[in-house]
């Protein structure tokens, strides 16, 4: 942590809303450049060269959003994501040097909400991070029943029949409620990117597909043959309540 970071934390205590961003990136130059950029945009930046340091920083600083590189020495970016996700619902954006579908899918399966590939356009990364922070307070629809699950958007929880809570990440929850609010009509991947992720142009449909799959694993009795979250060929997805 640099001295400058500490002064920004002081600024926050004076009532100004400042977002804390955790940057886990092993390349010194990229990390420094990213820190400078985000600081220039008014973020408080915690930067870490490894996943281990990143998690330690997160535990102390309670970041609002994280950027994690996949190729890290020691603990991999995937493991770092899993670890961060198990502790918090914060939006995680993966920065990958490869955008082969397998890597992207693995990254998203590890709990990330989004990914960008190097070399990324810095403004795009900034816009994505902002979009994730902006959408945190969710639009709510009425509570509804999904098979044996009771979804209460106002409280942001999904209860099982025994009263215990089924944990969904904020992106998954938002995906579910946005589909629910469309009254059983299908939404295209583009629509979902816009509504759930808040992007209007850099979307990659794989982002939606992986999240849908992850959501199915949690809410469908048989994820291979979905009955609630169904694919509408040629269009997108819809939620059958």
């Amino acid at each position: 942590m640099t001295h400058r970071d500490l002064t920004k934390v002081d600024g926050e205590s004076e009532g100004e809303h400042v977002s804390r961003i955790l940057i886990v990136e092993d390349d010194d130059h990229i990390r420094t450049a990213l820190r400078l950029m985000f600081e220039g945009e008014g973020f408080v930046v915690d930067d870490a060269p490894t996943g281990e340091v990143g998690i330690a920083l997160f535990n102390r600083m309670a970041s609002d959003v994280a950027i994690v590189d996949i190729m890290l020495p020691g603990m991999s970016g995937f493991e770092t994501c899993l670890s961060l996700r198990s502790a918090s619902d914060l939006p995680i954006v993966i920065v990958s040097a490869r955008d082969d579908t397998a890597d992207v899918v693995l990254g998203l399966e590890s709990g990330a909400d989004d990914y960008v590939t190097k070399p990324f356009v810095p403004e795009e990364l900034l816009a994505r991070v902002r979009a994730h922070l902006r959408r945190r307070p969710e639009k709510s629809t009425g509570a509804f029943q999904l098979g044996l699950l009771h979804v209460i958007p106002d409280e942001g929880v999904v209860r099982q029949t025994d009263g215990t809570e089924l944990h969904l990440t904020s992106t998954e929850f938002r995906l579910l409620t946005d589909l629910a609010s469309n009254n059983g009509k299908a939404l295209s991947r583009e629509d979902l990117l816009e509504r759930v992720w808040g992007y209007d142009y850099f979307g990659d449909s794989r982002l939606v597909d992986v999240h849908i799959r992850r959501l199915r694993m949690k809410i469908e009795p048989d994820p291979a043959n979905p009955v609630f979250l169904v694919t509408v060929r040629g269009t997108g997805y819809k939620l059958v309540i």
Partner: protein
Amino acid sequence: MRRRSLRLRLLVTFGLGAFILSSLFASLTYLGVKRLLIENQQQTDLQQSYVNAAFVRSTLYSEPTELSNLLNSIHKATDSNVLVQTHHQWLARSNQASTLDVSLATIKTVGEGHATEQTLDAGGQIIFVVGVPIPSVETQVFEVFQLHNLERTLQTLALVLGLGALFTSIVGMSGGIWVTRRTVRPLEEVSFAAALIADGALTTRLQVNRADREVQQLTESFNQMVSQLVQRLERDARFASDVSHELRSPLTTLATTASVLQQHREDLSAAGQESLDLLVADLSIFQSLVDDLLEMSRSDAAVPLVREVISATELVNQSVRSAARRLGIDEPPVEIDEGVGDPMVLVDRRRFERVITNLIDNAHRYAEGAVALRIEVQGTQLALNVDDAGAGVPGDEHEQVFERFFRGRAAHDRGIARGTGLGLALVRDHVRAFGGSITVSESPEGGARFQILLPIVESEQP
């Protein structure tokens, strides 16, 4: 020039060779056997005729009136006709004997007191004439032997040899077929495999089993050649990919730092600001170039496609929407031909979006934007036309325009609006990976028409 097929030539050579050889062999056998048989028979007949001549002589001495009876009984016993001449007059003959069978030359020779023999082959009927003089009574005895039995034997022999020759020809032909299979089949396999490899199926190899040594050698060297080629291709692809990958990190730093500088733009002098603008502009070209190179190295390194069956019209609409947003330009209209229905295509969604983005970007750069994207059905294929109203692509550049780093006259003329030179090459790579094709021609608006043809996997009529 089109050469005759080796298969046909081998077959004809073997078949014809076997036929000629077996015919020759059969003919020689036939002629040899025929001669031998005839000589044998003649020997017997000759002896017979001397004995008979002796009978004739004793009959002439003892009881000449019995001569006719004797001749007939000889005929019965030996199936030969006997004619007797005295003083140039025919004295007697057996019942079926014909004076025509005995030639004048024979008569003359025998008349001069010399025994003679003559073989006549009259219309397939062989007769053997023996003339024996009996000088004491100025008489000549002629005996005409019909070689009936011999003829029958020779006919049978000819039949057997003919069948033999036919059989040998067939065996020869079969040998030809076998040899052809043995030699031509491997050649065909090699050519088939080479064609597959040329089409991009680089995992194609020849089977080494059950082959002859020469074929096995060919197979092994072929496979080795392919493996080395593939290795080389992979090495080249890996090199391009490695270079692009190595560029990622510094490029990311550069781009991010440039954006930090942008934040502090106001602190810079006028010269500093202008330099920064140049830096940012070229960085973005650099970034697109690395992006395209990476995309290309992925398609070179045969990173598997994520194929799915998608409604073509929906896909095109979505891709156009996202391409326009990505490029920051207005969406060109998508016109769907009547009767197109809802055809499905099997593509990688992300790569297809890339294809549309690059085509629209291309039209935007060189022709003030695409006029329309038009969808029609051509037989079993979906045709997607990206039309513009620009200057068009000159005929001699129709192929080159899809080559990597090709910059046509249009690009030179417009100067500043430069792309990476990889956009259309990527489009072609991707379209081919979907099993489709792309060509450029003239649009109805007089500009360029880029036409993508994709196989339709299934279709629903409207």
